[in-house]
């Protein structure tokens, strides 16, 4: 799943408010923290953050840029890093993506949001027959 963490294909995150209404948006990058955790780039989220404050559960779709396999991850938000090694790793990568797209000011990293991975299921890929 190395290609899931290079920022080449934007992942999707869904969260849910306490009134039951879901919310979904793209993010720039997912990065691997350890065997049980991933970090997601938070650049311009407001509703997503508001939802996570009351309900830490999230669902993420991520596609491997090398194999084109897609995974759905069930996540539980744990903490928000605004400095430290995970934040720096994401910041450097996001800056590169932003420069490529000419969106440096819009794409600056606010935080690296760290989640525990509850499950990860392959849901699509090029090996499926049609």
């Amino acid at each position, binding site marked *: 799943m190395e290609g899931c963490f290079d920022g080449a294909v934007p992942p*999707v995150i869904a969260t849910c408010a306490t009134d039951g209404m*879901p919310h979904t948006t793209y993010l720039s990058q997912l990065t691997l923290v350890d065997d049980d955790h991933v970090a997601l780039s938070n650049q311009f989220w407001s509703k997503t953050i508001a939802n996570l404050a009351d309900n830490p559960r999230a669902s993420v779709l991520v596609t491997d840029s090398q194999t084109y396999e897609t995974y759905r991850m069930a996540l539980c938000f744990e903490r928000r890093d605004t400095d430290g090694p995970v934040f720096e790793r994401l910041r450097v990568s996001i800056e590169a993506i932003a420069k490529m797209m000419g969106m440096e000011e819009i794409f600056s990293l606010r935080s690296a949001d760290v989640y525990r991975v509850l499950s990860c299921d392959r849901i*699509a890929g090029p090996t499926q027959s049609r």
Partner: protein
Amino acid sequence: MLNYGAIAEFLDSGVSMVGASADDQLVPEAFRMWGASLGDGGVLRALVSSDAGQTFERMRQGTRLCMTFTDVLNLRSIQVKGRSVGAPEPPGPADVACLERYDEVLTPKSRLNGTPPALLQAIRPRSVFAVSIVLEEAYDQTPGPTAGTRLEEEP
């Protein structure tokens, strides 16, 4: 009232389509869609990838869904939220036509932003189910300072 015409036009312009539902414990499930159309009265019919098994199982009249549509070239994005009019349905002839139209518009536009054709084929759902929601809210989701603002309604 929401500007249905503007939203419908945007859906037909070659946009990526993703959405989500949530269960009674507020656990969300993200999914991809492959084609959508907005009809009279603000009912949006979308074709959800069949791998969204939890969404398929829990959908009934009144189930809340969100859907985000993003132009693959300029990243202009709209998120709509609403409630399902009923249970999911198998795709009919009109849905198949919608899916084919979506392929025809999205494929060349994706090539312009460098998306490899093999990647587009890999994420294209093998099968879909149809959901219809009544739109209740719509937001500008374009990355930047206006993200999250409600779309202007028709005067």
